[in-house]
């Protein structure tokens, strides 16, 4: 099974390679890649956030076990795409002064804060940190919820199209509702006993 993880990462890298090739060949402008790189980061965040609540509802079957084991990789990949998104933004803006100048715009600072919030969870995404932090590890990972919410706000404020943001949020809402139902059922069974 040792080849699975590199293969998984190879697949995750494909979109980034496509973007960078397009940039190198000059077939796309940096500004054209802002949307796809940001969207990719959000999608990976959704994929990282989904298996937890789904496993609470459906139980730890084989499929969800595999998905759960890939969760940290998905999270780190989401962070990597967020960094790529930032790099593309910096190339597009060109001047540091221009970046600083628009830092105070709501559509921009929400993106920055979302990225900053992803740093702590991403920085402790390895086994030894997980072991040594114990319960606190999970607490830090929850920063991702805030990062995800801010990413959607960032997207919404730039585009003013609420449908794409909603489409990315919808599966999570369903998963969270299922988890809430599972918890409610469990709490009910406990009190009934």
């Amino acid at each position, binding site marked *: 099974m040792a080849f699975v993880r590199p293969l998984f990462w190879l697949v995750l890298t494909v979109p980034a390679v496509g973007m960078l090739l397009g940039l190198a060949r000059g077939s796309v402008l940096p*500004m054209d890649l802002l949307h796809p790189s940001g969207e990719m980061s959000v999608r990976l965040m959704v994929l990282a956030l989904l298996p937890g609540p789904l496993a609470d509802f459906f139980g730890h079957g084989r499929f969800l076990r595999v998905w759960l084991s890939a969760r940290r990789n998905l999270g780190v990949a989401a962070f990597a795409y967020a960094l790529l998104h930032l790099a593309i933004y910096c190339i597009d803006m060109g001047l540091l002064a*221009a970046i600083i*100048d*628009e830092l105070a715009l709501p559509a921009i600072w929400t993106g920055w804060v979302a990225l900053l919030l992803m740093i702590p969870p991403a920085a402790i995404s390895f086994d030894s940190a997980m072991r040594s932090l114990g319960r606190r590890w999970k607490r830090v990972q929850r920063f991702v919820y805030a990062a995800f919410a801010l990413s959607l706000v960032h997207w919404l*404020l730039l*585009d003013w199209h*609420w449908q794409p943001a909603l489409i990315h949020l919808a599966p999570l809402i369903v998963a969270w509702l299922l988890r*809430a139902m599972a918890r409610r059922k469990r709490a009910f069974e406990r009190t009934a006993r």
Partner: protein
Amino acid sequence: MIRTKSALVASLVMTAALAFASPAYADGNVRCNAGSTEKWQKIDRLKKKVWMEGWELQKMQVEGDCYEVYARTEQGQAVEAFFHPVTLQKLVVFRRGQEIYRAPGFGG
């Protein structure tokens, strides 16, 4: 139980927020009422308009029934401007999703 409820409330609030966050000033839905494309001027004519604004042109495209221009102002601000395809009038300008200019009387 408290957690369940707060999770439910949070998800509902987020859905509602997103549903109602629909555009007060949606740049995605600018309508120029430009009519049939036969009467449209060539998009390349916009280059001069952009130059006259003092902007640095990045990209021009057709968006809905408008001409859309991505550019940098003299101050280095990233702007997204919509022009009427027939009159080439500058109708509305956005900076990172915020409206910074609207032509008098333009309601699209």
